[in-house]
């Protein structure tokens, strides 16, 4: 499988190589820059499809079975198993021999790999890649820098999802900030400087705390075992072994370490997700960012936060995830679902509306995740992909609208369906996917998240209110989305005045040198090509989500098993409860 290993390596490195090339070409060779960027995006997409296909063909049932039985309390939790690792050891294909920096007795490795969780986020990133290039086709100002930053951002995002070395993970994690900072700060809307600064400082403070948490967990493992390792699978395995230690002193040591690690990682990742009340950078950054920036921000970068929880927070601090994570994060998630939806409804700026809807949707992602059941975790992953597709799609559509009219105020629009029917159909479809209409992808994610929470609620006797409140999200989501559709698409035709160009922003300046009326036709073929893959995937994943669920199940089950073990340690009482409810179910089934 060496081919796949190199495919993974190229997938990550190709965009940044392209960035260097594009930057070197200078700002004058515009057409060449565009086509090179598009070519790179298509190659990356091809590599991602290849990896996905290869991954779907792997037989990982042994891992799934081991993880599932560990979740039921039989046997140890199997170690994370990244596939397609470049530089893999012949006897252990899940580890790499590519050392990078030696620190004392430990080595930071260039340790890349793909598992059932990361493959789908890589897939999502790659699918959105050509779209972000195509939507930026009309950028004129400092074009080489623009595409260079955009390409660099892709490497950073892809890198986060495939890193299995914790330092490498952190470097990619941090590296996402800088390109986006410049994309917002230079090519953004009227308040771009303020937005960029706020975005940077806010998320940077979060990441610094994440770093301290990362250092803390590495050092704690070193302290206890004398083994200095930066490999995420090994760290998770060490933590797993240590927290289950028979020695009460070791256990209490790890209790306090976990509390610290969990808090630090959580703050860092919660800013990224974002969880209420750490979200206020998001509407601003989204509104001010150029369309491609918004698409990457909403589509992929927010998932880096939730992915961090899944990849690091729960495996490295499983007990704390149950003790503090579940009550606190679940509560914040529910608040986020409702608060985001209510904030979204009364926005007049469509982009702001979509930004707030992200807060609501990510609340559901986090709630499903912190049900810490296999179903909820899978729903959470599914919903990450869905949200990336639908919100990415919505931002693309809003961008296309803005290119034509240079305004996004809902109150300026009406009956656009009759002016731009193709735009209307795409908007309708993607909006319906976003509110979770069955047959489209959002439904599967929502249902799985909620069913995960339901399983937790009724098996362990928690209060049903979080579930009920989260389920009302169905209503609120439809409320703001259908109101937006009605105002924008339906009713008598109403278009913003031809003079709505006052206060032209940077984005508008290069987007439309021509007069707005010349641009206000229906979608052009380039735009249809941009949107079509997203629309097709919304339908495909909605009708047949099983490939995603099946391929992610082993790795999801590992996370669920960490959580299940932690639950048994933290609340021995709940084990008894679980035991009885399981027997009830089993007896029901036997009859």
């Amino acid at each position: 499988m060496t081919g796949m290993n190199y495919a993974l390596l190229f997938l990550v490195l190709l965009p940044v190589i392209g960035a260097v090339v594009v930057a070197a070409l200078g700002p004058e060779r515009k057409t060449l820059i565009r086509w090179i960027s598009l070519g790179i995006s298509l190659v990356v997409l091809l590599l991602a499809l290849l990896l996905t296909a290869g991954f779907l063909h792997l037989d990982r049932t042994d891992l799934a079975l081991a993880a599932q039985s560990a979740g039921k309390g039989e046997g140890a939790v199997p170690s994370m198993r990244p596939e397609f690792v470049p530089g893999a050891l012949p006897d252990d294909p899940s580890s790499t021999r590519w050392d990078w920096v030696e620190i004392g007795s430990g080595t930071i490795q260039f340790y890349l790999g793909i598992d059932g969780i990361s493959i789908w986020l890589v897939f999502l990133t790659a699918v959105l890649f050509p779209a972000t290039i195509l939507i930026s086709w009309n950028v004129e100002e400092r074009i080489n820098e623009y595409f260079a930053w955009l390409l660099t951002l892709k490497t950073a995002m892809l890198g986060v999802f495939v890193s299995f070395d914790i330092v490498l993970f952190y470097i990619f994690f941090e590296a996402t900030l800088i390109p986006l900072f410049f994309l917002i700060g230079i090519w953004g809307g009227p308040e771009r400087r303020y937005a960029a600064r706020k975005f940077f400082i806010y998320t940077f403070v979060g990441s610094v705390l994440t770093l301290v948490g990362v250092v803390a967990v590495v050092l704690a493992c070193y302290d206890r075992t004398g083994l200095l390792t930066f490999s995420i699978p090994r760290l998770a395995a060490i933590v797993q072994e240590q927290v289950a230690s028979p020695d009460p002193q070791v256990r209490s040591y790890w209790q306090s370490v976990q509390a610290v690690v969990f808090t630090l990682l959580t703050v860092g990742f919660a800013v990224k997700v974002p969880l209420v009340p750490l979200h206020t950078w998001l509407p601003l950054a989204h509104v001010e960012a150029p369309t491609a920036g918004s698409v990457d921000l909403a589509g992929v970068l927010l998932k880096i936060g939730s992915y961090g929880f899944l990849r690091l927070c729960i495996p490295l601090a499983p007990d704390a995830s149950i003790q503090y994570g579940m009550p606190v994060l679940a509560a914040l998630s529910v608040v986020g679902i409702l608060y985001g939806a209510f904030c979204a409804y009364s926005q007049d700026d469509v982009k702001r509306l979509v930004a707030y809807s992200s807060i609501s949707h990510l609340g559901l992602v986090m709630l499903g995740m912190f049900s810490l059941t296999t179903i909820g975790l899978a729903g959470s992953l599914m919903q990450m992909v869905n949200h990336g597709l639908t919100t990415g799609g919505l931002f693309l559509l809003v961008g296309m609208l803005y290119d034509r009219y240079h305004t996004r105020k809902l109150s300026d629009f009406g009956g656009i369906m009759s002016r731009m029917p193709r735009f209307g159909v795409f908007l309708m479809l993607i909006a319906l996917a976003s509110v979770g209409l069955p047959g489209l992808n959002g439904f599967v994610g929502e249902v799985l998240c909620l069913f995960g929470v339901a399983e937790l609620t009724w098996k362990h006797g928690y209060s049903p209110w979080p579930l009920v409140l989260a389920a009302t999200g169905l209503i609120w989501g439809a409320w703001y989305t259908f109101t937006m559709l009605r105002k924008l698409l339906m009713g008598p035709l109403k278009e913003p005045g031809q003079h709505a160009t006052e206060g032209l922003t940077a984005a508008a300046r290069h987007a439309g040198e021509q007069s707005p009326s010349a641009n206000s036709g229906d979608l052009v073929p380039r735009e249809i090509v941009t949107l079509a893959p997203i629309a097709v995937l919304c339908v495909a994943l909605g009708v047949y989500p099983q490939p995603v669920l099946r391929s992610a199940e082993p790795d999801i089950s590992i996370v669920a098993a960490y959580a299940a073990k932690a639950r048994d340690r933290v609340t021995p009482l709940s084990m008894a409860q679980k035991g009885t409810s399981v027997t009830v179910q089993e007896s029901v089934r036997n009859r």
Partner: protein
Amino acid sequence: MSDLDVALRIVPALPLIGSIITAFLGHRLLGSKSHLPVIVGLAGSVLFSLMVLVEAPGSGRISTSYDFIDLGNLHINVVLRADALTAMMLVTVNLVGLLVAVYSRGYMAGDSGYARYFAELGLFVFSMSMLVLSSNFLLLYVFWEAVGLCSYLLIGFWYERPSAAAAARKAFLVNRIGDCGFLLGLMLMWTTFGTLDYDGVFSRVDQADPATLTAICLLLFTGAVGKSAQFPLHVWLPDAMEGPSPVSALIHAATMVTAGVYLVARSTPLFVASPTAQLIVAGIGGFTALLAALIALTQFDLKRVLAYSTVSQLGLMFLALGAAAGQPKLAEFAVIAAVFHLFTHAFFKALLFLAAGSVMHAMGDVIDMRRFGGLRRLLPWTHALFLIGALALAGVVPLAGFWSKDEILSAVREASHGPYGGMLTICYYAAVLTTFLTAFYTFRAYFLTFWGEERIPEEAHGHAHESGLVMLAPMGVLAIGAALTGLFFGPTHLFGEYLAKTPIFPVLGDEHGLDWTVLLTGTLAAVLGIGLSGWFYVLNPGLPERLRRGLRGLYELSYNRFYLDELYGVLFVGPATVLSNVCRLFDQYIVDGVVDLVGWVPSALGRVFQPPQNGLVQYYALVTTIGLAVFVIFVVLTLRG
């Protein structure tokens, strides 16, 4: 795969294929022939659903397609099932669908959205067929929402009209409220029984504790209340009349709104085990039936009268579904009565809506009964067909409505001798009163439209004319159904015997002969209603006006739909909007304000202590990263030593 397996797949597949062809090719290639793929598909579906009708009850076939979700202990497969109840629904849906599609060929001709209309219609019939073919509750929910989407799209078909846009949104949102409860019910069901398959759930009913069971039933019923427009979620259906009339006939009278009835009938084993839930179903049904009938008395929009009538008739069906509270032996008879009424109602109500559409077509889209009248000579065929529908709805012997309504009344009357007799007796009299009111308002609409002096609004531009054969023929078929289905299936017990083969009825009920008291009461109520209406609107045209002045308060209450829309506006919509604005401002100024304040403190301090700030974020990032790296290396090295 047996023949039946093939038929089960073909029935939903044909309309879907037709819909897809029309959606992608209609606008450019097919043009005014866009109806062809859908109509041909529907015709095929009707034939195959008749085959299912013949073969299904014997086999009780379940046919798997593919795994939708298979994860951990959640298994949802796309599994089609065929039993008597499904087959009966399938035939109704596809037959009415076909007739409505043919009618639409004439009604929608020349509309700029002609292809879109047929594509959405095909999608609806596909979704509705799948809804009744599903063999687990989650799949049912999937298509439950899908038919809701089609309803949304078709109500908002003329999206340029603000009223249509608002009605579409309202319909979807009100339905979502019910669906939210439905989904919670599914979750509770899944955690209770460990499965969502009909068979699995029904075979484990006795293992759930009664409180949980009641909760599950009531949550499912919440969904039914939304979809079937029962009080308090009935407010969307009258507004849904903004859609084209054939859509009102198909979706908002004959099929989609009966999905709630289908759901409760399908879940009979659950409801039978929970008398509390049944009683609530019966109570809501009876109350809605009466409430909607009272509102229908004073409306002037012909289609809205019919819409309230639909709400009222659906209420009667729910009354029957819940009537067997505490008497499991009665359940089969009561549920069959409800489904029988669903079946006959599909014919005569679809007929009435199509006839109303024909009137609208002739009147230049005017539907206010104050603006036209005396149309019986201008539209003789429409008049005759409307009359058949009206007689059937009013429950006049021997038309369809008479037999099914009689069965419902018999079931409720019999139930009122049981353990919950008090409440069911009230429900019985409410139902009798509803019968009387139904006959009255139906014939009020009939007399106002077709009798009296001939008046035609100027919107008709003097071209008011009878509809063509393409519209009249489907109405004729429906009229035959409205006239004869009752007589053919009712007194012969054919319908009951067929439906009783559905394997969801655990207890075989007793034989039920004709209840002469009920028969006479029902007929008397109907005749009285018609007679009174004739006296009011034909013999004494000034009387309603005098009565209106005399009973001003009551009239206003009915005319303004008991002010329920206004009440919801004040209680829910207003506060939610205010809360939303509060959240928006709170987020912008308070939450973000605090953040800015926190951000301002260090920079203010920095301005005091560190004048040479260069403002380059790269510089800060670099310094911070280097600092942290030094820190990490320092700590690691120290620890090693």
